[in-house]
């Protein structure tokens, strides 16, 4: 649908996001500039209120900037209708949230199938692909479990399976390890790093922990709604072997 050769995957130019009016006005983004290319694993960090989550939501088309330009593969996102934004999310983006955001009382398999339902994938193929995605996150045999029957780490894996089942170009993760204990955090981060390496999925992740950012190869720090620093670094996965396995 949206193809523009040579343009960067994600490009924010002087993006502002203002909540409220007058005295209670909050400038969540205040002239943010950012460029991310395909295949990167970017961690966005910064103190609370620095605008890092807002930036991620703008990139994910879940929120719209007050002004400024956001281009996705060269297409100006601000010019798209709500339906076109939905289709952009449907075909190119996958989301992983801190609070998992799975449908309650709904089996893991059905949760993972949901994006495919909206893509009109036939039932049999939908099932096959959802099973494969659940296998990829190590949840074979848990297909029929509902979120309430799964641990936090398992729920986040279901959420990741749901995000990758459509083979998105970009996976957007907002503090994906925020609700997990340290052992689960490592599991989830390894999974994300592996998806980045093996499938070439671009990952943009918001985190406030340096240990998590270390799994990526680039760290962008926000302060007061702007990019404060942007550094490239090797991933901790490199020390363990290129395939990301122990």
């Amino acid at each position: 649908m949206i193809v523009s050769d040579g343009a960067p995957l994600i490009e924010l130019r002087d993006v502002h996001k203002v909540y409220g009016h007058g005295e209670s006005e909050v400038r969540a983004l205040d002239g943010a500039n950012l460029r991310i290319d395909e295949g990167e694993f970017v961690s966005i960090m910064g103190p609370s209120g620095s605008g890092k989550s807002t930036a991620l939501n703008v990139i994910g088309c879940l929120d719209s900037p007050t002004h400024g330009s956001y281009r996705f593969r060269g297409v100006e996102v601000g010019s798209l209708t709500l339906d076109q934004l939905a289709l952009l999310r449907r075909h190119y983006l996958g989301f992983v949230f801190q609070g998992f955001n799975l449908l309650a009382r709904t089996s893991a398999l059905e949760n993972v199938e949901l994006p495919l339902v909206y893509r009109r994938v036939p039932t049999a193929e939908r099932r096959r692909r959802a099973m494969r995605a659940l296998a990829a996150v190590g949840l074979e045999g848990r297909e029929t479990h509902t979120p309430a029957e799964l641990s936090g780490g398992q729920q986040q894996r279901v959420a990741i399976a749901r995000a990758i089942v459509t083979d998105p170009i970009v996976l957007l993760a907002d503090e994906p390890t925020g609700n997990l204990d340290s052992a689960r955090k490592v599991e989830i981060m390894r999974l994300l790093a592996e998806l980045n390496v093996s499938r070439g999925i671009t990952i943009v992740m918001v985190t406030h922990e340096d240990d998590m950012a270390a799994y990526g190869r680039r760290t962008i720090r926000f302060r007061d709604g702007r990019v404060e620093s942007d550094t490239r670094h090797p991933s901790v996965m490199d020390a363990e072997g290129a395939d990301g396995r122990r």
Partner: protein
Amino acid sequence: MLWTTLMMALREIRRNAMRSLLTTLGIVIGVGAVIAMVTIGQGATAKVTSDVAKMGKNLLTVMPGAARRGPTSGTAPPFTLNDANAILNEITTVAAVAPSAGQGVLAVYGNKNHNTGATGSTNGYFDVLGFEIEQGRKFTDAELQGGTPVCILGATVKRELFGAQDPLGAQIRVGKLSCQVVGVLGSKGQSTFGSDQDDFILLPLSTFHRRLAGNTDVNAIYVSATSDKVTTRTKQQLELLMRERRRLAPGQAANFMVMDTKELQQTLQGVTGALTALLGAIAGVSLLVGGIGIMNIMLVSVTERTREIGIRLAIGARAYEVLMQFLVEAVTLSVFGGIIGMLLGLGGSLAAVRALGLPFVFSPGIVALAFGFSAMVGIGFGYFPARKAARLKPIEALRHE
């Protein structure tokens, strides 16, 4: 896509079984109560109307006595056969008259006896009061003129004295008179007021006068108007004629009264109408309570549903796809609940009217109204909060508290 949406909606209904059940229950109660109440009320109205219609066609009753003191009290003189003839001849809107006189008698046949009433009248009695001959025949002119001892039995008297036997030709004793049974009347059943309309023996008026009463008094004249539109005019003319014949001075109180069955019918219908309105109001409250129940459940689940909408939007659903699903859910629950409520309401009222001996009156208007109202509440409160949520930015829907 419609199929997928439908399947998705059905899955959501099953997934949220308790919410679905409570929503459906609200609609079931609302629809069921309204249909049951109104159907029972209308059954009662129909019963009263048909009872009054059975009393006779466009019936007016002329009785001696002042209206205030009751028909038989006081010293008001009775009528004569000539009064009845004058009514038939002088008032053009009168189709038939039946002068009648009666007294209580003991009827005896073989070893059976039965306390009943003997009524003397003419063949006009059948038409005016709406009786059919079930067995045998009416009186002949010779019998009516000559005071022949013949009689026609009301259905109750026939049953009491003869059981399953054939009464035609039998001699029975009516008070001190021995007479031959020439006919049996068809049953009219109980009147609206609970009295048995079939418990009497009909004799020719002349027979009654000469052989039972010993006088020529006529205690009541039943008059049938030519149509239901002229009963009021006929009543006025009857009053004028009878005042003249009874030589009452202008301004003098009447010593007779004319009862219009239509007025009675209207009074009774007013009562049953009020009853129906009352039942309807009670049912309306049930409908409202059911509606509020639906509303509550829908609104309580808005937070959860708003987040669900946020999730669906985030993974690429378009707003209208989400709305379609919610709409299908609401419609499915409302229609399902409406049908169950309709069946329960109709079934319940059918059982109730059977038990009360009322006719079953199906009124599609009320069914449609109850169904429509509940469906509107169900769909409205299922759909509009969803529409509000679907118009939010996905991030706002996801963060909804």
